[in-house]
């Protein structure tokens, strides 16, 4: 077993992983950019190494600097967290070459699933349903137009190397295609270094439901049930819960079986998530996230299992600690993401200094926070401040606890998504579990 874990990340997820490491008696190393010198995650670790200037590409995205930081600190394992380099197969490979245990899947699994068109082909071959779409990236706007005509509008353009909603463009009709094509390819090039874009039929009013999977080096793969993540803005999630409300048992069974089959087909090891679009009784594979998810706490709350500790154990070569029939889904858990964004200004980022912060406590309330009073929320990184997770014996109790917790939450100094989250949680459609991916953008929660 490795003894010292470097977490190549920042914010709440770095702190969450340090906690898991302490559970296993492992020493911890934080890394930080100049902008994060005083960040809470730096103080949480046994050691901290400066890795460069504030822009992420010169610090948290710089593979050579991170490997050097691991060497300097004597770390023998690296946890990538989410975002940054977590789905960069070259980073996983660089860790392996440097003799560091990468706490995550193999570079090959990351590479295959990171190429969204290859992932679609591999999943289809494993019998997992996929959204009708182009089997390869399309060459130009005219080719995209020809393909869109065969599946019918609306369509969505997606970056082949993409993820996190970046480089996606919805096209309602043919006249919008050329403009959307230009935007999507430019964003894909800027974000991923590859302009390749493919076309998929766009499913309106679908639900986003994902399945947590976990594999070990012995070839076992289990699912850890589903998460409902339909409430999003800019294709990024705001609210996640488990179980998914009103999900037909046959659909749930189909999803979890498909997820396990898909993960098994690529020999997947460690924690991963297969995302699906659910349209009534049909479901389609969207993509796989080959890492720990932001929303992993809702799964932990309903299963009573610690995903980070399991990641450490499996990375050290241990078999999965639980067989499938020991992974039970009990009660309900809901997570909301508090971002430094102004919902009144179309979610414009709201950087600044947190002058006051009161987070709730109480039965069934869990907070995963990357900030404290005085933290400077910089322009350089993702605007997630903290996650609030409420659980209960069932969905009504989880909602009641979440409602109370949101009322007592105070953040001053930056604008946040808190007012929107309060509106969502009070909304009758949310209360009865009737959610779909377009609700925020269609203004269901306005006014």
């Amino acid at each position, binding site marked *: 077993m490795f003894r010292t874990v470097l977490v190549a990340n920042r914010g709440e997820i770095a702190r969450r992983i340090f906690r898991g490491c302490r559970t296993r008696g492992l020493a911890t190393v934080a890394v930080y950019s100049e902008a994060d010198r005083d960040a809470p995650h730096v103080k949480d670790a046994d050691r901290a190494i400066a890795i460069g200037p504030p822009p992420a590409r010169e610090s948290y995205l710089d593979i050579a600097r991170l490997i050097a930081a691991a060497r300097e600190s004597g770390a023998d394992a690296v946890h990538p967290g989410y975002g940054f380099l977590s789905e960069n197969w070259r980073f996983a490979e660089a860790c392996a070459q440097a003799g560091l245990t990468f706490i995550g899947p193999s570079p090959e699994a990351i590479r295959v699933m990171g190429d969204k068109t290859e992932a679609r082909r591999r999943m289809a071959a494993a019998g997992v349903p996929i959204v009708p779409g182009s089997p390869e990236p399309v060459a130009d706007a005219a080719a995209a137009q020809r393909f869109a005509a065969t599946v019918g509008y609306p369509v969505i353009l997606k970056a082949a190397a993409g993820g996190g909603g970046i480089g996606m463009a919805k096209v309602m009709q043919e006249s919008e295609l050329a403009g959307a094509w230009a935007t999507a390819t430019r964003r894909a090039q800027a974000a991923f270094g590859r302009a390749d874009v493919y076309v998929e039929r766009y499913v309106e009013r679908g639900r986003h439901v994902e399945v947590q999977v976990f594999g070990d080096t012995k070839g076992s793969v289990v699912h850890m049930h589903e998460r409902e993540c339909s409430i999003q803005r800019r294709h990024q999630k705001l609210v996640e819960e488990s179980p998914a409300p009103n999900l037909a048992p046959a659909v749930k069974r189909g999803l979890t079986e498909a997820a396990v089959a898909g993960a098994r087909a690529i020999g997947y090891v460690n924690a991963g998530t297969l995302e699906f679009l659910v349209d009534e009784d049909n479901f389609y594979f969207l993509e796989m996230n080959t890492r720990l998810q932001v929303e992993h706490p809702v799964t932990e709350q309903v299963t009573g299992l610690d995903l980070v500790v399991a990641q450490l154990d499996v990375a050290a070569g241990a078999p999965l600690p639980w067989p499938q029939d020991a992974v039970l889904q009990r009660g309900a858990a809901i997570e909301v993401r508090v971002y430094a964004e102004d919902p009144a200004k179309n979610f414009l980022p709201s950087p600044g200094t947190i002058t006051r912060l009161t987070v709730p406590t109480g039965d069934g309330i869990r907070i995963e926070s990357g900030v404290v009073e005085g933290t400077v929320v910089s322009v350089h*990184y993702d605007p997630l401040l903290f996650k609030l997770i409420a659980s209960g014996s069932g969905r009504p109790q989880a909602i009641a606890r979440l409602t109370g917790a949101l009322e007592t939450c105070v953040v001053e100094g930056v604008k946040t998504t808190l007012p929107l989250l309060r509106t969502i949680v009070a909304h009758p459609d949310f209360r009865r579990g009737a959610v779909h991916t377009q609700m925020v953008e269609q203004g269901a929660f306005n006014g």
Partner: protein
Amino acid sequence: MAEEIKAHITGVVFQVTTKPGDRVAAGDPVIVLESMKMEIPVEAPRAGAVKEIRVREGQTVQEGETVALLE
């Protein structure tokens, strides 16, 4: 009289999409800021010609700071 185009948000200049002398229509992006992983255009408030660009790519600008002049 030249009109100041101000950043409506704090961010880093991601791209300077115009140069002095360029004609722009109302709503055209003059520069693009990046903040918290989002690209946010700073748009021309009216039609005109760009007189001066006061920022360069990679520079941090504060909300309310003048980024360009419009003629």
